[in-house]
């Protein structure tokens, strides 16, 4: 019994050892690389009381009132404050779609994509708008 037990233990410890070793090897072959030193997070700051959100609110209100030049102005101001905000670029694309400037609309969607993190809603909205701009 004893040797058998030892064998069992040996087998188990060998297995565990093998698993640990393989994990170690795996971790060596695909090292976790911290690229924070160089890479920035995309800021889609949506603080509810921030100036950019206030400008978005004004732009959407102008869009609803069919004042497209005004909405463009608000969004350009928002982009000047926070140029990497994917939402600003998306709303700007919307404004151009309303103005029937489909080329500008597509260009603005491209910028929105480039700044969107994995934001399914925004990406879906961009996809839908892109289809409409292409159709235009």
């Amino acid at each position: 019994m004893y040797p058998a037990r030892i064998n069992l233990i040996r087998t188990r410890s060998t297995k565990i050892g093998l698993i640990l070793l393989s994990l170690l090897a795996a971790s060596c072959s695909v090292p976790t690389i911290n690229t924070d030193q160089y890479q920035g997070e995309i800021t889609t700051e949506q603080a509810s009381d921030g100036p950019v959100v206030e400008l978005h609110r004004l732009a959407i209100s102008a869009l609803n009132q069919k004042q497209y030049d005004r909405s463009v102005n608000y969004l350009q101001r928002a982009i000047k404050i926070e140029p990497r905000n994917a939402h600003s670029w998306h709303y700007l694309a919307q404004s151009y779609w309303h103005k029937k400037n489909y080329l500008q609309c597509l260009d603005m969607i491209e910028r929105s994509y480039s700044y969107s993190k994995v934001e399914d809603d925004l990406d879906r909205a961009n996809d839908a708008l892109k289809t409409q701009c292409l159709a235009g």
Partner: protein
Amino acid sequence: MATKPPSKTNTKLRSKVRAKVKHPQTQSKPGHSKSKKSASIQKNSRSQHYSFKRYLFGFIALSLIAFSAYLYFLNHLINQRFDGDTWALPSRIYARPLELYTGMSLNQESLKFELELSTYQRVRYRPKPGQYRLLNQSIDLYTQDFEYSDSVEPGRLVNIKFVGDKVTGIKDLVSNKPLKLHRLPPAIIGSYHPQNGEDRLLLASDRIPEQLQKILIAVEDKQFFSHFGINPVSIVRALIANVRAGKTVQGGSTLTQQLAKNLFLTAERSLLRKINEAFIALLLEARFSKQTILAAYINEVFLLQQNRIAIHGFELASQRLFKLPIEQLSTDKLALLVGMVKGPSSYNPIAHPVAALTRRNLVLRVMRDEKLIDPTEYAHLTKQPLGTVKRLPGVNPFPAYVDLVKRQLKSSYSSSELSAKGLRIFTPFDPLVQRALHTGLKNGLLRFGQPNLQSAVVIADYLNGDIQALTGDSQVDYPGFNRAVMAQRPIGSLIKPLLLYSLLDGNRSLATPANDKEINIKQSDGNVWTPKNYDRQFHGKMTLYQAFVKSYNLPFVNFGVEGGLEALVKNLERIDLLKHEVVYPSILLGTSAMSALEVAQMFQVIANNGYFTPLTTIRQVSDKDNRVLDRMPLKSQKIFNQAQMIQVQRAMVGVVEEGTAKYLNTRFKGQTLAGKTGTTNDARDSWFSGFSDRLLGVVWLGNDDNKPINLTGSSGALRVWADIMTQQKIKPFKISRDAALEWRYINRNNGGLTKQHCANSVLLPFIKSQIPTTRSACE
């Protein structure tokens, strides 16, 4: 047959002939000679009388016709002036409006600078519109209404709080509520002046302060509301006074006459001019209300000379001398301006403060005598200082930037439109960035001890294409040759980032082996080109990354002949920077000349992940009634591959970390920055282009006569760039995340995969299919 109408000569002849025909009849009847003689004399005299009358009537009729024609002509002049644009209005060039919001990077001193530039007046009490008060770690500010094309930003009394370099709160001091956003009206940074050199700001009738009208009338024309354009009593009185004095001591002109002279006539002293003036004044009074005439006078009158610019009208004079709109002037200041009407040069309060003070007090005395102020007020007001600025603000403090604005406008607007239609030109000019440029450049140039060293600098926001600051001369306020736009100089190694992008287009990565070996290229003209490294050494095998950060020339020329040249030419064409139809291989080393502005455009695309956004100095042009004539919307066109461009950016970060721009590490400790140095043959041109989180700066140094400056990109332009950006408090550059890229440590010498702690390891991005497969031994 058509007969001619009798002319004046014909009539004369006919009467003579008639007289001759009658004479023989009188001679043929001698018996009645006496009575006939007298009858004949009578007849003759009647005939003469009749002729005289006819002459007189003719003369009067002709005079009336001539006079009518004269009046018609004068009236036509008045129509021309008043029916169209009465005055040629200069176009104004505005800086960007400053958006104030909680959390923004701005300190108290910077806001003070902005306010001073926008001609706000510093006060110690609660501010009124156009004024501000400095408090401990905050500013109370009363902004003025500003009309944008789409809305009016109402003037507000606000408090802005600071902690260090951050705005920590904005509060409306009237409603006592916090504000999310407040836009500061933009400062005027330049103007297009009419050919006649006049500058004015129009003041609408309803904005003219009543007090100003009263003072003006009391001093210049007491009977303004009762006369009909001319005042005979006043003319006689002036005539007597002048005869007594033996020289001109008193004028008899009414305000209407003065307006007539200013608008239509010259200052020539002649009887004819006086007659013209009187008739025009009469016509003006017949056609326009007193209020219209007064408003025209207030806008027309010449008040101040500033260099070559003549400042007309009370509004602009008020803003230049007191930094305040006319409505906000106190009585003593209004009195000073009215006093200056008599002699804008003699009573200029900056050049001749004593004379101006005496004149102002004289006006105040007239006001007291006319009971516009009481004696106590008079006593108080005469004790007040003049209260003007010590020095008039510069007419063109940012000549290079304004020059570029004008160049960009010329394609769409004629000179006459720009100088007379009162257009409003909105630019992204950032006074704070320009100030940093001025200070940094001045400090930077001092270190070289070369008094003739010239420079050009462009600073832009590469994410939206705004050119925020620019200078085209080492003496930043000198309005001469704009080198940032006009000077075309070889760019040296500044071509390498785009060349690197072109090389990465194929199967190359930053880890691709590069060969720093000699190469001879036979050119189309038969000459052989033998490029060299700057240090004239060969460095053997290395990675493309290493070749780039050390700015070695030969690996790039070697790659160039393997297809890199064609790709570079194609990419230069895509950003409209290919200058020559015939391309020589030497373009690989930046022999192609560009201006600093063009270099900035090239690096804008590189810094912005391959998105081309045209660099611009104009955002919008409106007419004087705020109707938008032109919008220059934010444009962004994806023309280069983002993943590929990110690899170029990483290599440019390497230039700062360990390459030719390593100096920045000591100046901006811990901050990731990207850049590239450039030096041309014999160190004639020194270039540096670098970027942070948003700002792109391009610096060029060189001599106008192209003599060597003995400065490399690293020892010259780079230092100046650092001096400028230190003033600016830049934020670090962060490379965008891109799903197509994976990051690996490689050995910078042989390109093999390695580990972080191993010698010569460097972390670089790779397109998945191009990740190196070989491993490097860890030393």
